[in-house]
């Protein structure tokens, strides 16, 4: 377990892992955002957000 933790730590902190891992996550995230936007998820968010959310304020 300790050995795997050290290995994970080494991967995260070497020059490649330091930037490659977050960069890969960012790319996947941007693809997700575009895909979600295209299939209309932003509309769902907007629809919920422009009306008073009765659950959020403790009524509904």
């Amino acid at each position, binding site marked *: 377990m300790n050995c795997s933790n050290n290995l994970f730590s080494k991967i*995260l902190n070497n020059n490649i892992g*330091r*930037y490659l*891992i*977050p*960069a890969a*996550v*960012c790319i*996947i*995230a*941007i*693809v*997700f*955002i*575009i*895909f*979600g*936007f295209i*299939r*209309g*998820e*932003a*509309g*769902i*968010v*907007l629809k*919920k*957000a*422009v009306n*008073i*959310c009765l*659950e*959020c*304020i*403790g*009524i*509904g």
Partner: protein
Amino acid sequence: MAKAKNNNKVRLSVQAVWAAVTNSYVIGFIQGKIYKGSLKNLCVPGLNCYSCPGALGSCPIGALQSVLGSRGFKFAFYIVGFLMLVGAICGRFICGFLCPFGLIQDLLHKIPFPKKIKMFKGDKLLRILKYIILLVFVIILPMFFVDISGNGTPYFCKLICPAGTLEGGIPLVIMDKMLQSIIGFLYTWKLVILGIIIFLSIIIYRPFCKYICPLGAIYSIFNPISFYRYKVDKNACINCGKCSENCKMGIKPNINPNALECIRCGDCKKICPTGAITSGFKNKPSCKNKDVKHEKDKCGKL
């Protein structure tokens, strides 16, 4: 110590400015209405109820539950992508600097109290609660406990979120007589939760962030891998333990500077006598400790 206080002032200013900017729909506070413009397509990075009269953007946790609970979609690419992007860039820096509910807790903790609690038995175990809340109330219940039309309920917002009560529930109910006529047990329940969080925030630093916040739980996963990270120069660190003593989130920055619980407040950096703790998108070695030969060499090369 003075530097740490100065750091806190800077952080409080950033938090206050950000909270003011993202809640700048002043008409909403005057008329008891909420902003209905297209900016609400976008999420703010911190926990900020979209039913706050001043809110210009959407709350990512509320938005996540809305999409997961909607009939048409069973995965929220748009929101998950947003959270991944923010998390991969700066992790829980958001909690420390850009969360309005974090700011409220910070201010509450400044209220004097006879005995402030930093650590207690069961603290570490209780911190797992926020991951359970994320899984159960934000993901599983809205996704699977749907009504007859196939739509889920934002259970976290409905049953737990004190930010919604404080930022949306209280101002809207005060200003809207129709809402006043329909409040019931749920409103009382949420006021009790808010009251408990407010009281606990006075004696414990950021109890909501430590034990309950599902947004903090999400960002915490990105802390060890985000672009913005903390780094400890082991050659400069003298293991004095001042960083751990000073850390209000109860972590040990000299051992694990990118711990899941770190909200990037920066107190450890300011208190470190040798400047061994640095942060940024590109961790450069510290030049503060001129007594350490190794550090001198490094600094000379820069």
